[in-house]
């Protein structure tokens, strides 16, 4: 278990390095735009080359990348923003809590909503509840989140004036963004819970439990639920990633000061260091969350835990046992 944990933790920096390289490569393709956007309307080629040199964009991509990594790892410095000429980290750091809070709230609500719905749909398969939930989930899954957000904004904020439109200053401001994120998430999660539960309900041990004469309630709660919900922990990880990806759009619609809206703002102004920093922060958060979820899964499920007991040790034990027997 410890070995697995350490292995997973060591993997993360490597993953982030590769992701950074990938993003860096693609961003460097647009360096000409970035430079011309910073220059005034009328500029000479000389201005262009001077600025390119000043920003360090005239060096080969791989050198730029190595420099960037060095600065980030050794100095914790994400560089200077092309647009504001201030340190990137200051602007990014302020925005992390909003995004984290948003992603966390929506993930928890998604799971809290998805599990009971999925379990009910599975236990009462083919009932009217199951069918309705299925249809509703299918429809919700086909609506793009940002359009859903616009429609809610139009109805509740603009026409009915019940809720505020933009910002995050009061809890009331969070209602609409959370709804737009949670509904599609819960629809997705519910379908996963349902299929996992259905798998379990058809397993032999559930049949055994039934034939023992255990009540339906006991069968569902003790045998099916426990086994059916375990894999849902891993899915919760991808729900979190989904929510984090969703913030990019939702934060934009509701003008929330988070990482997502910063990424888009930076991309539109071709602010390469800012894009890098925001994207890497989002990737880091996802990676850490995935790690936590995988580990908790391994801790909770005894079957997974057993696979991490190294083969060598179990062989040794067996060897000893046979020796003693002899």
């Amino acid at each position, binding site marked *: 278990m410890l070995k697995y944990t350490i292995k997973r933790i060591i993997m993360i920096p490597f993953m982030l390095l590769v992701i950074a390289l990938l993003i860096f490569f693609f961003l*460097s393709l*647009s360096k000409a735009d970035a430079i011309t956007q910073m220059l005034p309307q009328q500029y000479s080629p000389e201005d262009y080359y001077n600025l390119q040199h000043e920003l360090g964009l005239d060096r080969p991509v791989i050198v730029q990348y190595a420099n960037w990594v060095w600065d980030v790892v050794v100095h914790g410095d994400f560089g200077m923003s092309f647009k504001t000429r201030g340190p990137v980290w200051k602007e990014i750091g302020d925005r992390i809590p909003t995004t984290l809070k948003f992603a966390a709230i929506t993930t928890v609500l998604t799971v809290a909503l998805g599990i009971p719905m999925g379990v009910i749909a599975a236990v009462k398969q083919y009932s009217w509840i199951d069918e309705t939930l299925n249809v509703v989930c299918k429809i919700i899954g086909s609506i793009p989140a940002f359009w859903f957000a616009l429609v809610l904004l139009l109805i509740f904020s*603009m026409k009915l004036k019940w809720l505020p439109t933009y910002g995050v200053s009061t809890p009331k401001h969070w209602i609409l963004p959370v709804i737009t994120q949670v509904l599609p998430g819960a629809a997705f999660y519910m379908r996963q819970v349902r299929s996992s539960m259905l798998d379990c309900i058809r397993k032999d041990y559930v049949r055994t439990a039934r034939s023992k004469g255990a009540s339906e309630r006991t069968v569902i709660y003790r045998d099916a639920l426990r086994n059916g919900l375990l894999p849902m922990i891993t899915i919760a990880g991808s729900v979190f990633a989904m929510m984090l990806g969703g913030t990019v759009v939702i934060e934009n619609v509701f003008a929330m000061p988070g990482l997502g809206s910063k990424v888009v703002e930076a991309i539109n102004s071709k602010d390469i260091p800012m894009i890098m920093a925001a994207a890497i922060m989002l990737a880091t958060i996802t990676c850490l969350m995935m790690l936590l979820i995988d580990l908790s899964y391994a801790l909770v499920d005894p079957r997974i835990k057993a696979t991490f007991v190294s083969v060598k040790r179990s062989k040794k034990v067996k060897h000893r046992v046979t020796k003693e027997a002899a």
Partner: protein
Amino acid sequence: MAKISASEKAAKKSSLKRNSQGREVWRRLRGRKLAMISLGAVIFVVLIAVIADFVYPYKTWAIEQQASLKLLKPFQDWSHWLGCDHLGRDMGARIFHGTRVALLIGIGSTFLALFLGTVLACICALYGGKADLIIMRIIDILSSVPHIIISLAICSGLGNGIWQLVTAITIGGISIHTRMVRSVAISVAQMEYVESSMALGGSAGHIMFKHLIPNIMSIIIIQGASNIAGNILIVATLSFIGLGIKPPRPEWGSMLNEGLTYMMRYPFMVFVPGIALVFTSLSINTFGDCLRDAFDPQLKGKA
């Protein structure tokens, strides 16, 4: 009596003629009302994309601005039945041409990602060992970041345009396809016929395209069908935040973005492209689900 003999005849016929999986799937699809309705809707959308140029010539309808028609509401002037946007461009024409862009990118990126994902998955399944490990590590890395962030970064690097978008969405989507296909391809790669083909000296390409892929085709088709709608939504999302298609070309996401400013007084500017988007993705998704049920009746009702 007549009934029995008819069914006997049918049985005889089917025993004489080997039923292909495609025909079997079609037979199951035909039996379901929902499948036929959604298929009709999908065909309708495709038809709109095809006839866009004939109904609304691109230059004169979708792009040209007419100040006198600014913000014309729908269903008031029947020659502009879906109304006009803030620049006096016909909404109907822009929706029709937007369908083209959406389908082109949605299907194109799904197809490309699926193809690359399948080839990678087959390499994993056939070679195993180190090749498998390396490919799966890369896939792990790609899938550790939300799809949209990769697409965003690639889009901002490559710039606006249809092919740039296709590339961005393809790279973002490869990981999920590779995982799905690999899980099936590995079990197929251990079948006797693959082994015997290897023993006979079949090349990797031969085994991949003659044995592996035909046997996992159903998974590939199901994956593709369920992915197209998602990709269409991603295109719209990227365009909505200003990264997708260059402005004069009509695209649903950028139309929604333009409608944002006028949403309060002219809600149709948000509703018309939105409904087109939801209709398209809903019909493709529903047909995809029906297709999955038809391919594997055992799976029906699950997942």
